[in-house]
């Protein structure tokens, strides 16, 4: 079963996966900004736009954990009243429903819809669950300036509501009235402002051996969410990109080196080990593959590597196919990996030769936290080298079709540092240093005016 209904924007043709199919009734296309009606099977174009959708701090599809529940960003509104401008992110989890993240004045807060209407206690006070909330200001017109994503109500850029806030000193209640309804939302401040964007990693959690480690994107998002004053104009949505100019090159290069170190540090931390588990398995050549559970792993870090080392006995002229499946007990989804162990020997005009190894290391990258069963499906095959058998060197282990045993031993270990990452780290660290040196040399020679 897929978790999304896919529609095509009737304006730009962009394909949009609805994450809250059945709930969402309007969509602002993430590619062209057009507003679409998806309440019915036919997608209707409400307002056609030919502009790039505005950029937000938390991209659509980013996921993070808020109050212990994983949630995905499905919509973004940029709103303003006479004095301030802020962002509201609609978060969705099919088991927990909707909530809001509100980013205003560099502060983040969590919004949840009230299911019981607060009771009015006079003109400027309401009671909600035994607490008294006092109105902070007279209702002011609040406008939705930009909109991207999918929503469970009809939303359009330009929508205006009357809005105010009631506070009890800690939490507050947002009151909004449109032409046909009144909405109350409970707003709770979230502790550290930097932690919120950091908790959201763009896109789906990476899966499988080819997925990138979960660390680096978080650093990117942290930079992107420099707190800004409420009076900052709308055009200044990505302050990091704008503040960088050529004069800050040295600082930028320093940042680049520092970032590389941080990435390497995170990779090490995510890669760092745990106790290995060992398990034996004997298979027979030419027989159907044998399946065995090698280990049950409980992984606690957000993302980590898992390393499986397979060692064979002293077989000759055989290969062993190792299909690994790392199955998440909760979701029953599996991450697959493959390892090939082969060892050949023979003799030709140059004398004896060997090829291959009796050991094969297979790594799973960026495995999310959870409890996993690691299974292997192993099969062995004889390799019959015509030139070898005719000389009789390997005929004993050969083409007779008899089944022979291969004893395997597996060692499973959470963790593992990827050689590719180290190389990348070295390259990334040296590139800025090289640029800096070259620049210094040029500056000394009068080539730069800075």
């Amino acid at each position: 079963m897929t978790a999304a209904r896919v529609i095509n924007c009737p304006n730009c043709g962009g394909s949009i996966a609805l994450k809250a199919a059945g709930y969402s009734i309007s969509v602002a296309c993430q590619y062209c900004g057009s507003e679409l009606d998806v309440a019915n099977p036919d997608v209707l174009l409400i307002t056609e736009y030919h502009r790039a959708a505005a950029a937000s701090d938390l991209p659509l599809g980013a996921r993070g954990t808020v109050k212990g529940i994983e949630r995905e960003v499905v919509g973004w509104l940029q709103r303003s009243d006479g004095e301030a401008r802020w962002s509201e992110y609609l978060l969705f989890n099919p088991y927990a429903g909707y909530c809001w993240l509100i980013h205003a004045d560099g502060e983040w807060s969590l919004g949840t819809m009230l299911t019981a209407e607060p009771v009015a206690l006079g003109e400027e006070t309401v009671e909600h669950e035994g607490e008294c909330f006092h109105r902070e200001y007279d209702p002011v017109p609040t406008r939705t300036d930009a909109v991207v994503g999918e929503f469970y109500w009809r939303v359009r850029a330009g929508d205006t509501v009357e809005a105010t806030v009631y506070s009890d000193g800690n939490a507050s209640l947002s009151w909004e009235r449109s032409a046909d309804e009144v909405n109350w939302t409970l707003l709770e401040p979230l502790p550290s402002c930097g932690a919120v964007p950091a908790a959201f990693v763009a896109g789906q959690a990476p899966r499988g051996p080819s997925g990138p480690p979960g660390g680096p994107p978080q650093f990117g998002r942290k930079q992107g969410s420099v707190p800004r004053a409420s009076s900052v104009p709308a055009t200044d949505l990505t302050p990091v990109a704008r503040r960088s100019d050529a004069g800050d090159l040295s600082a930028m290069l320093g940042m680049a080196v520092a970032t590389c170190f941080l990435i390497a540090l995170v990779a090490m931390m995510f890669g760092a080990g745990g106790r290995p588990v060992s398990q034996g398995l004997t298979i027979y050549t030419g027989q159907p593959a044998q399946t065995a559970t090698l280990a049950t792993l409980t992984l606690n870090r957000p993302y980590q590597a898992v390393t499986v080392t397979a060692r064979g006995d002293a077989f000759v002229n055989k290969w062993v196919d190792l299909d690994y499946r790392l199955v998440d007990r909760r979701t029953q989804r599996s991450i697959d990996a493959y390892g090939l162990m082969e060892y050949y020997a023979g003799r030709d005009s140059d004398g004896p030769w060997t090829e291959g190894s009796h050991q094969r290391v297979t790594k799973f990258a960026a495995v999310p936290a959870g409890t996993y069963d690691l299974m292997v499906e192993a099969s062995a095959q004889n390799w019959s080298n015509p030139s070898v058998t005719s000389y009789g060197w390997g005929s004993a282990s050969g083409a007779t079709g008899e089944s022979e045993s291969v004893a395997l031993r597996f060692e499973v270990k959470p963790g593992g540092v990827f050689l590719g990452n180290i190389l990348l780290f070295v390259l990334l660290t040296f590139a800025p240093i090289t640029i800096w040196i070259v620049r210094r040399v040029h500056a000394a020679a009068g080539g730069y005016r800075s």
Partner: protein
Amino acid sequence: MRSAAMPYVVCGHCRSVLLRDGQALSDIGKSAMLPFDVSPIQLGTSGAIDGVRFDVVGRVRWGWEDGSWNEWLLTCTDGQARWLGEAMGQFMLLSERKDLVSDPLLVGFGQGQPIRVGDRVAEFIATDVKQVRCLGGEGDLPFPTPADWMMTSVDFRDSRGRSLSVQRDADGVSAYAGRYVRLEELRPHNLRRIEGWTLPAGLR
């Protein structure tokens, strides 16, 4: 077919609506294909609330001008049927209140008079009046779900978060009262698995 107590059943394969009459089944028409949604509830989900255990045996999906929602039919160990309304990611547990149908406002509503936002029934205040259309059904149901079935639906609220849903169709007026519940309050089992999501801790 899970519940022999319900007279109608929608075949999960061919969408035929079948009427049970003793041992006999008769085909009375087709139900519309339900549109895809990401509801965590499915036929076969079970749970417990208010001291009774329940099984989800049927679903009706309703649509209106600005959206749609699910109503899941629960058969309960106390012999009563309840409905679990699902809209905007929130759940409402409802049971029929035949006693409220004799309220003067609802008697008048049954005779064709309108209800307006702000009208009262007992402690409930009308908050929303809309025309709704049946989009289809699945599983066991107490009524057939023809696609041209239209109703007038009125939502009422009280100050404690309780709600009342009043419906009027060609056959008359019915009233269901209930309250918002969180999914974990239902202590659910056999929730639908949704790809890419894991069940939150409270629901495992």
